[in-house]
């Protein structure tokens, strides 16, 4: 049973994802706060995956990814974003080794998410 961390400042989105992934038999840890997410990522070694929202107040998705890279936390990551606007986003993601395949544009199709989750977890295993 894979354990997935969900990070999004929008609580309602977190809930939907929790419900869906729980329903799909995944163990879910979630938070709306970037700082909490970083500490969870550091502490909880049982985490198999992270779904991160890019645009958040204070600590943003990209900051979390940077921290993970710094701390050498290697987890499959799906990046959610409402706007795929800033080229900087993509460039920053690409610098950290992420690409189009790691990104889902909001509003997401839950089935699409599930496919991607499975794919990433499968790859890892």
């Amino acid at each position, binding site marked *: 049973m894979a354990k997935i961390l969900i990070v999004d400042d*929008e609580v*309602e*989105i977190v809930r*939907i*994802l929790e*419900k*869906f992934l729980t*329903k799909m038999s995944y163990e879910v840890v979630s938070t709306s706060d970037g700082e909490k997410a970083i500490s969870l990522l550091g502490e909880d070694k049982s985490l198999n995956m992270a779904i991160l929202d890019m*645009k958040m107040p204070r600590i943003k998705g990209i900051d979390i990814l940077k921290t993970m890279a710094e701390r050498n936390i290697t987890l499959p990551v799906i990046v959610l*974003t*409402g*706007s*795929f*606007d*800033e*080229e900087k986003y993509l460039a920053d993601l690409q610098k950290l080794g992420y690409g*189009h395949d790691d990104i889902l*544009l*909001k*509003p*997401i*199709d*839950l*089935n699409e998410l599930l496919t991607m989750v499975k794919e990433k977890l499968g790859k890892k295993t």
Partner: protein
Amino acid sequence: MSVRIMLIVFLILFVVFTAMTIMTTVRQTELIWKRNLEEADIISDLILNGIRYPMLTGDQDVIQRQFDNYAQNKKGIDAISLLDHRGVVMRSTDRSLINQMSLADNLDLALKGSEIQGFVKKKRTGKQIFSRLVPIRNEQKCYACHGSERNILGVLRITLDLERAFVELRDLRIRSLLLAIVSFLAIVVLLNIFLFRTVIVPIRKLAEGMNEVAHGNLNQQILCAGSDEIGSLTRIFNKMIVDISTLIEKEKALTAAEQERKEKLASVNADLVLEIKERRKAEERLNTAYRQFSDIIEFLPDATFVIDRDRKVIAWNKAMEECTGILKRDIIGKGDYAYSVPFYGIARPMLIDLIFQSDVETETGYSFFERKGDRLYAESLSTTLKEGSTVILWAIASPLYDNNGALAGAIESVRDVTQLKQNEEKILHAAKEWRITFDSINDLISIIDRDMGIVRCNNAFAALSSQKPEDMIGRNWFDVVYGPTQKVDSEIIKAVFLSGRTQFEEIFLQEINKFYEVTASPIFDSAGTVTASVLILKDITSRKELQKKERLAQLGKLVADMAHEVNNPLMIISGRAQLSLMEDIDNPEIKSNLGIIMDECQRAKDIIQRLLKFSRRGKNEITAIDVNKSLDSIISIIEHQFSLSSVEIRKHFGEGLPPVYGDERQLQEVYMNLLSNARDAMPTGGTIDVTTTCTTNMVKITLKDSGMGMSAEVMSRIFEPFYTTKEKGTGLGLSVCYGIIKNHGGELNFVSEIGKGTAAIIQLPITRGGTENG
């Protein structure tokens, strides 16, 4: 003469006669008076005697009677009065006097005993009368009545009227006078006749003769009248005349000869004097003219000198002295080209010498040489005139002629034009600099007159018509800028001429698809009237595009922010719907509703994605696109819908078009957008002609409608985001299209004519480019 003699004689006669007459008259007058007085004495004595008795008797009345008797009988008695010792009239022929105090003169003397007699004036009538006062002495006989104490008893006064005596006297005088006059006249007449005949006539003849002689008439003899003195005188005179006549004849001959000689001499003399006068005048005129001529030359501002026909200097003015440093006194009279030394350093022919004879070598030595009539003009350089520098000289030489038209000399003026030339060059250089500067400016600069005619323009402006600036002069500014068919009016040009203040305006030139900022500045004449205007057209197309880009960038940011904000709620909606669908739902309507919610969320997501793409942050999918095919697929989708609005789409596709590289979905969005605009421009229907062609490096797609067209104002703003003319438009369509086409390295232009329609022209590069960075 004779008259004078006669006058004297008459005068003497007159005096003699007058004297005689007077003497006679005086004598006779005396006699008459004497007689009258004697008469008066007698009468008074008679009266005295006559009244003696009556007085003695005291018969007063007798006295009165006697008085009256006398007065009546004796003519010439005026009055007889008896006065008493007081002077009171006792008795009188004049009754009115009785008892009156007598007023007779010298009465008091008479009353004292003196007898008074003499002429008196009658007191009452003013008549001259003779009065006699006789005192009546007291005698013994009288004592009886009068007493003895008085000596004088009274006075007898007799007054005589002398009228008769006066008449007699007057008659006497008249007679004497008449006698004198008659005698005088008789003597005068007789004397006259005598004198006239014996003296005056011969003398007059003699005088006439002499007069004749005096007047040169010698051919006459005076008739000899008698043998008296005058006769002999006449004869002598006659002889004398003959002698004189002979003498005069001789004299005449001599005089005539002399006269002739004199006349000749005088005539010659007069001619001579006249000629001398004339000459003197001419000489004076000549002198004046020469002096004036010299003065003129002397004060000419240009260095001037004159040479005579021997080419010797005869004039050398002040300016020449200053120019050459050679004084007049040192050069006058010198020849052998001495005058050329200051200019050339050596004695050699110069311009003035060419007047006398042509000299090709000298002529060709000038940098400029011209012959106009008999004048010569030249420009030459002198290195000797000013030490250490070359002087440019401008010279004019002209011949001088004498009265017969023969060459008498020549005059030359020299002017130092170095400064002038340098200034001219400076000006020309400055003008050239300005021209180059003017032409180097990329802005389109033109100067126009009040009638919009081009007065001057720079290269950039002329390039509008692909011509040279000089060929633009006189053309209408609007024709050049907007093309001759466009009827354009510019408020700012009107305003600049009216107000005289610089005006600004932005214009869009459709033909060349450019924006210009027009600055119209006035040019004033000296009276302050705006006679022309400088129009500067600054190309602001790139600035405009930058503005557009900036706006689009802002829009992109806005859209991205909006997308993020909207996507979250969208995701919540669609997520919830998906979660709900995972539940067992029996109610098919709920299932359907949830499905629709999910679909609509997807649509909303697509729209947002499109907006994101527009802001170039979307994901491009670059492929090789067959433009015809791509257009066809769009047309097939909308054809039916368009036909419902009576809009017919006609395809004119070019064959064998090369592919263009780009994002087909984006391009199709452009087609779609433009076609929709075309339809909206034809609310009552029409046609849309879709034409594709290609050039060597571009594929051109033209979408031309038959709609209402656009005004220039609208046209200049269509690409602005949020600019719309439609009631429900967002104003994003064309700006999105513009962004997409630009992103593909292409061009999107519009050509529109009000009432005829609009054509959208898309040009896409055939070679791949411009999209990779997106």
